[in-house]
């Protein structure tokens, strides 16, 4: 079975054209986390063809 790619994830936010780090297919992967100290969000660069990770959440 083929695995999903980052592009299909709800946490995939394409880098807008004109941004300093714009590349076709590049996006910010933004994940919400929470621990005993509270909520926080992490953002790391990904590409639409990257294979899904364990935090993958399918877009509706």
């Amino acid at each position, binding site marked *: 079975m083929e695995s999903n790619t980052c592009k299909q994830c709800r946490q995939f*936010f394409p880098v807008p054209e004109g941004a*300093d780090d714009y590349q076709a297919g590049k996006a*910010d992967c933004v994940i919400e986390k929470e*621990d005993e*100290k509270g909520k*926080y969000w992490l953002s790391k*660069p990904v590409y639409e063809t990257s294979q899904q990770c364990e935090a993958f959440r399918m877009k509706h």
Partner: protein
Amino acid sequence: MNQMVSAKVLEYRSKTLNFTPEDPTEAKIPAEELHEHLQKPSTARTKRLKDRCRWKHASAGEFIEKSVTAGIERMRYLTEAHKASVGQPQVIRRALGLANVLNKGTLVLQQDEFIIGYHAEDPNMFPLYPELSHMAVQDYLMSDYSPQPAKEAQEINEYWKPHSLQSKCQPYFDMADLGRMYQVSSMEAPSFASGYNSIVPPYETVLEDGLLARIKLAEKNIVQAQKVMTTFPWNGTTGLDNIDKIDNWKAMIIACKAVIAWARRHARLCRIVAENFETDPKRQAELLEIADICQRIPAEPCKGLKDAMQAKFFTFLICHAIERYASGYAQKEDTLLWPYYKASVIDKKFQPMDHMGAVELVEMERLKISEHGAGKSRAYREIFPGSNDLFILTVGGTKADGSDACNDMTDAILEAAKRIRTAEPSIVFRYSKVNRPQTLRWVFNCVRDGLGYPSIKHDDIGTAQMKEFSQYSLNHNGATDEEAHNWVNVLCMSPGIHGRRKTQKTRSEGGGSIFPAKLLEITLNNGYDWSYADMQLGPKTGELSTLKSFDDVWEAFRKQYQYALNLCISTKDVSRYFEQRFLQMPFVSSIDDGCMELGMDANALSEQPNGWHNPITTIVAANSMVAIKKLVFDEKKYTLEQLNQALMANWEGYEEMRLEFKRAPKWGNDDSYADPIITKFYEDIIGGEMRKITNYSGGPVLPTGQAVGLYMEVGSRTGPTPDGRFGGEAADDGGISPYMGTDKKGPTAVLRSVSKVQKNQKANLLNQRLSVPIMRSQHGFDIWHSYMDTWFDLKIDHVQFNVVSTDELKAAQREPEKHQDLIVRVSGYSARFVDIPTYGQNTIIARQEQDFSASDLEFLNVDI
């Protein structure tokens, strides 16, 4: 249970002084829980932020919060770039390394925060620096805090071994000498092995110009240099200089562009969270405001106080934690932020807010620093017990024309510190007699609340030092007389220039420690360390039988000191040599006007010399000299051989003899026997020998006596000493502080003793512990103010205070969970008392709690 204020009264100038609390409601607070009642965060948000603060404090080398670990991203992306850039100029490789970390690293945004940015991939992590010290990384790999995956981290660390600063520098030294330094008992280990560093970033250019303007400057300089290189007639003796310059400017451009893109990634993150995760409309709007700020700055000049805070924090992260590790938080914060405070608070031109809005921003800044983790080795975690790292900012003082530099931003910084009650960042106040009363009152409010800061520095002495060091400038561009007023503490104690150029960029200029107590111990054993390392720790300076007079002992010590000192400073300068070849800092260079103008790396360019080194444990050595002179050579009660026999038994079986040595005159009592000897020890040997050395920058090196937590660490490695101290006991806790509990003649006797040391010193830390009831009484400010004016007139460099009762300290030892807000001054930094190991806590309790007698008040000329 004792009440806070004792019933004490004092007769003074025909008046009866009652020391009742200035705030009558405090009379009902038990003495042993006072500090738990003093915090008053200015907003509900800052209270929440403090309650959930991700402290990174360490105690006995272990992180206190269990979730804290090292991250891997910085080392991973730095290494990836290093491998991919083989063959390119080294400074370009350094810039590409920074860019790769910033482009690929994970960003962090936390709930509630307004000042954003972090230096690792998770708010519970901190980065590591294998290019600085592979030994420090190895230390983490062997611990519970290891970066994961550990195998990848191990491979990265192995990769860096041949490329690290340590590998570059070590071949130029005798391993026997380095082996002595690695004991960290007579000398601190060389910085090329520890990776420990400090810096004063030129924040001013970032806030005033913005990085886009810095890029334009570099581009213009490249065009100019290329033009010179193609102009007839070619001159190879000067033309080739342009190669390095062009590479440096190119690297600066790469670095600045990467920082702008990184800040704008933060802007996107805020927008994404506002639009996709956050449901509270107020927070959504705030996130969009933060996004707007991060889109504009640090690319563009700052226009308001929120801009300035954010630009400053991003710059701090790059200069202190991402491009290279550096301890500290050096900046003249009130001067730096004043134009933006004025724009936002007074003129309401941009980001309008009231004064309390500024106070809230500073509280949030303090909490961001409290969360900042530093990837220091275990040894360096141990020597700052109770803290995460050293963070010290400076306020107050005088302007270039000598007028008062205090402003409403100064007051906002101090008020925020008092309200939020965090141990870090520490604050230095430059005390001058022209400082305005309202700001002095804020200084006092912080001091009497027991924060341990502001620590107070003498404004005139610091300014005079900047002028003196300026004379040695190798490019004749040291601080002008006006710029000499622009100084801050670089780290705990030593002043250095702040501003757009001429600031200190590396600890190889000033910093590092030497330990006179251990040197005295081995002087009595022909250079051999019998009590700790069991090795020859210094040169052979004579068997006891050859030390026939006190002068012989004195001169033997001098030789030990000279040997250790030469090694300390030469290792720093060799580090500097290689730092500028392999550890360039293109971002720091880009924001320094000198580096930008000259096309030089920040490690290489030295316009304002600022050489210093930290003697720590000097008073144990000096008190020991006094005891030796009195009991061995003057009174001839014992021979040196008998003394050494007792010492080697750790005084066991020699208690009566130990008490005699312990009762010998001690520093801090205005004693006519001890003080001349100790003054000479400071001025002739500690400072006099150090001044003979010339460092990389062309200036002399001067002593900056301050102990951090090393007075405990090195005390534990120092055998019994002739001042009556047992082996392993803590040493003296300051740079010129009396040994704990031995200053028994009151606070003004301490001032009189300390004021005698004037020649050949750069800075000397003076710890004093003041009476809580007196400081919190209606007379507290007047007494403190008179004390400070007297201190100023006596030309003493520094003083800092603990204002906390023994009852409260002991209660906190019994029930630490109830005393989370109890802060104490350790040495050059403050810490939560409950985060300090018991050994260290006991050294604070043992410090003499100074009361004020009528004669003290008379000496201070207190007008009540």
